[in-house]
């Protein structure tokens, strides 16, 4: 989950100033601090571990290269998250284009199979676990039908549990548009689930 606050013991603004002044080693702090979170967020958006790594690395690289554009009023983490979300959206768009032209089925990454087994399940019986796994898989497949923007908004809301204003801040949309995307995303998934049941 994306944290809402940074470590109060470290003055990130000072570190950013140092990086801007040419001390690239100061940037290592941000990598050590945020790489895991950014990679996890990218994985939730892309559902592919390799692409998530690529997204994290590219996000840090872009952040470093465009550090002059960083405004000191905002937090580095928010800025980095925004860069990562944009990168992931671009990647999802490209993936949809590839799917469109090649008519290939959605890639079945290993996440659904290798992930932790129902940590929140009350009844861990094999039958319940199997049902939960099936629902999860169907939900994951249904999410593939979302547009990159709908998907990012949906993941930020329901998986990262961010508020509407926080999502608006990260995506650069206004709150009304975020709500609209959320509604459409949920509607589209519901439609997909309905189709699945009929099939």
């Amino acid at each position, binding site marked *: 989950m994306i944290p809402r606050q940074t470590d109060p013991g470290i003055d990130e603004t000072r570190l950013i100033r140092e990086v801007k002044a040419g001390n690239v080693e100061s940037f290592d702090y941000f990598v050590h601090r945020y790489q895991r979170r950014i990679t996890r967020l990218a994985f939730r958006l892309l559902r592919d571990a390799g692409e998530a790594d690529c997204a994290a*690395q590219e996000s840090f690289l872009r952040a470093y290269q465009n550090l002059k554009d960083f405004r000191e009023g905002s937090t580095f983490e928010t800025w980095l998250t925004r860069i990562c979300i944009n990168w992931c959206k671009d990647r999802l768009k490209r993936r949809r284009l590839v799917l469109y032209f090649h008519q290939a089925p959605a890639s079945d990454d290993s996440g659904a199979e290798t992930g*932790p087994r129902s940590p929140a399940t009350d009844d861990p019986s094999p039958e319940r676990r199997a049902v939960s796994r099936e629902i999860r898989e169907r939900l994951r497949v249904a999410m593939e039908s979302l547009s990159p923007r709908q998907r990012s908004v949906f993941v930020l809301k329901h998986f990262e549990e961010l508020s509407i204003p926080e999502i608006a801040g990260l995506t650069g949309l206004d709150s009304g548009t975020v709500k609209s995307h959320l509604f459409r995303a949920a509607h589209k998934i519901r439609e997909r*689930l309905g189709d699945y049941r009929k099939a």
Partner: protein
Amino acid sequence: MEHSNSPSHLTDAELFGLAIPAAGVPEALPAHFSDCLACTRALQEWKTAVRDLAADGGAVDGRSAEEWAAAEAKTIEAIRRARFARRPLPWRWGVGVAASILLVVALAVPSRHTPQRARPGVPAATDLSAEDQADDALLRDVAMLSRGDDGAGAWNSLLPDSGASIREEDRL
């Protein structure tokens, strides 16, 4: 799921709608849930599945500290490379621009002042005797006249010296 196939129960889409409300705000449960244990259970399963999917970090979550350290090191290395790649950029641009200018100058200057190169097998003008050079000049003038290049200089060169002819007439 067998639950969803029963017409009296809620569909998967309806269960999803309750597990993940479209507006992001939990909705009131239908009265059906107070009577139907199967639907209550199914809704719980949907909520669990959503939570699991949210918590599912896949291969990313299963990484060891060493693997994370390696990933961080890769990122730091990429940033260092980018730093060194960026630094000489203005210098490289300068070299590129200078090379382009030199190339343009090198191509433009000779085209303006192309030296008349001697054809192979033809001796250079300096190798000829004075008489041959005079003949050569005469032939050049004739060639110019035949081309229609009637510049004053060319005609004048063919005319006898006017001063000398006047003096000759006076003498006669």
